[in-house]
């Protein structure tokens, strides 16, 4: 089922949390709402499932306007961050609860619950109580409960936040598999870009109640629409520096290089202030455009090593390189950047 948010806005009293948000999620697609905390992603989720009333705008499930429908009439499955299992009911009854509310026959309920338990590999847990389960098992129960009544839409609010690192990796692929198998249109809310990038076909990156960019993880990374997107996506993060356009070159103290052709043709004028962004992998010892500075930080991450390069003008660029290099803190060195891969932003942070 396709979900469409049309100029959706939400305020709490005088505080506008979301303003005129447009978003379309295709049938069977899994999209991530990604953003720093307080960006309005959970608010959006709660509006879609009906817990929050919408201040203005419309929400459509297919061609049905569900804006004003209460949660009970929406058929949305939700996995809460805390899982919110019913502690007094055994796993079987937890999963059966949505069906019991619908007054389905006992035989139907039994068949569906067991089928769901099969998909999630937890047949042997059915008569335990939530308190007796591990975090990962609770997560599965929450998923099963959300999916058992074949929801039009599956919403997940930080589903992996309460799991430890190993389980997180496992559940990441597990949730992806289950989502594909159920074919359920899904929204995943997360603040973790790795989670978003690994689980979802598309990401909607949000900040301050607005969607900054929607696209595939690749697009987000290689074609960020603005400075926020470039800065949020990517780990270790991108480095920014201020400078000016002059005579077909980018100029800053201690750094001057020729603009790539795609920028020359774009609407930049001489003397314009710009911000450049260079991803750590685009600053390497043997790249063409020279950049000189002092090494101020070295961190070995095992397979890769992180360096901070401080230029004469005080700008700091980060480099990530595979293999140990023969240099130490305080060394003055000359490395190079890939000018083609440098992002240019205007003073408002929009991509040039």
């Amino acid at each position: 089922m396709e979900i469409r948010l049309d100029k959706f806005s939400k305020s709490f009293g005088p505080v506008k949390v979301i303003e005129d948000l447009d978003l379309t999620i295709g049938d069977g697609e899994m999209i991530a709402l990604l953003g720093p905390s307080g960006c309005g992603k959970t608010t959006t989720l709660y509006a879609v499932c009906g817990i929050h009333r919408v201040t203005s705008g419309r929400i459509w499930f297919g061609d049905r306007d569900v804006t004003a429908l209460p949660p009970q009439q929406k058929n949305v499955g939700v996995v809460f961050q805390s899982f919110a299992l019913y502690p007094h009911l055994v796993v079987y009854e937890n999963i059966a609860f949505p069906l019991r509310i619908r007054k389905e026959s006992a035989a139907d309920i039994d068949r569906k619950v067991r089928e769901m338990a099969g998909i999630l590999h937890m047949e042997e847990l059915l008569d335990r109580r939530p308190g007796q389960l591990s975090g990962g098992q609770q997560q599965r129960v929450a998923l099963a409960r959300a999916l058992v009544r074949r929801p039009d839409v599956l919403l997940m609010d930080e589903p992996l936040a309460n799991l430890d690192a190993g389980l997180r990796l496992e559940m990441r692929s597990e949730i992806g598999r289950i989502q594909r198998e159920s074919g359920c249109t899904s929204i995943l809310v997360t603040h973790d870009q790795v989670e978003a990038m690994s689980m979802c076909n598309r990401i909607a990156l949000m900040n301050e109640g607005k969607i900054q960019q929607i696209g595939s993880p690749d697009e987000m990374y290689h074609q960020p629409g603005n400075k926020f997107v470039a800065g949020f996506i990517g780990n270790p993060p991108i480095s920014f520096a201020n400078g000016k356009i002059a005579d077909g070159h980018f100029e800053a103290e201690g750094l001057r290089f020729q603009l790539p052709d795609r920028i020359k043709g774009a609407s930049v004028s001489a003397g314009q202030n710009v911000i450049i962004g260079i991803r750590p992998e685009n600053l390497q010892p043997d790249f063409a455009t020279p950049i000189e500075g002092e090494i101020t930080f070295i961190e070995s991450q095992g397979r890769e090593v992180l360096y901070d390069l401080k230029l004469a003008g005080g700008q700091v660029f980060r480099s990530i390189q595979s293999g140990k290099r023969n240099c130490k803190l305080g060394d003055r060195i000359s490395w190079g950047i890939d000018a083609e891969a440098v992002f240019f932003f205007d003073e408002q942070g929009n991509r040039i």
Partner: protein
Amino acid sequence: MEEDRKTNWPMTIFLLIISAPILIMYVWLFIDSISEINTESIWPKEFTLRNWRFLVEEIPGHGSVWTALFNTTVFATSVVAIVVILSSTAGYALSRLKFPYRSQFLGLVLLLHSFPSVTLIISIFLMLRMIGLYDTLIGVILVKASLELPFGIWIMKGFYDTVPWEIEMAGVQDGASRFQVWYKLVLPQIMPGVAALSIFSFMAGWSEFVLPLILAPSAETRLMSVYLAGLVNDDYLSDFGLFKAVGLFYIIPVMMFYLFTQDKLMNIYGGGTKG
């Protein structure tokens, strides 16, 4: 757990010693109720069932004990029913719903709780007279229940406050109505609280004395406490064996109640939440 189960003898003996006065009092009460009173020695004289005659015959001028027992049972259980039903719904509303003057209401309820009921007795008396419920069981039930309510509401609100919001959101999302969410998902979480409140208000009802004494004094509406006090205060009757037998008869239901609800009581005094 294994270690907890081993008997800690020094502690057991210590507890036994400091509980001894209470235990001895109960044992004495029991022995005195089935023996002739002996004022010269602490040893009972001879076995008798005469003190228990009130069970089969009326003590002149005091009505039947069975009426009093029946009244007390009706009184205590009605108080429990009213207090539990109203507190568990009011507590939910106060914990979860947003409505005007919510915090003021809570403050007011607490203020009501702090009133000693004796200070209200005259106005309550007049009010019951006015609405025609004076000297009826219903009248005194309503009064007792309303005096117990503030405590009940606060207890229930406290228990509801510990139930996470997400459970209700999940319930609503699973298609349950607000009422179903309360009844099927939230209420089961606070059963220890409901049990606690039932026990407390039953005890309060069972032992209530002043209200029924003043508001329901006649023989048909008399409660056990009033019946017992009536015997004790009767100038023509100084039968201590009888008093003790009636007293024992009065507390037997309470003791049974304690026996059966022990586990739950422990749970309440332990804070009401399970780990």
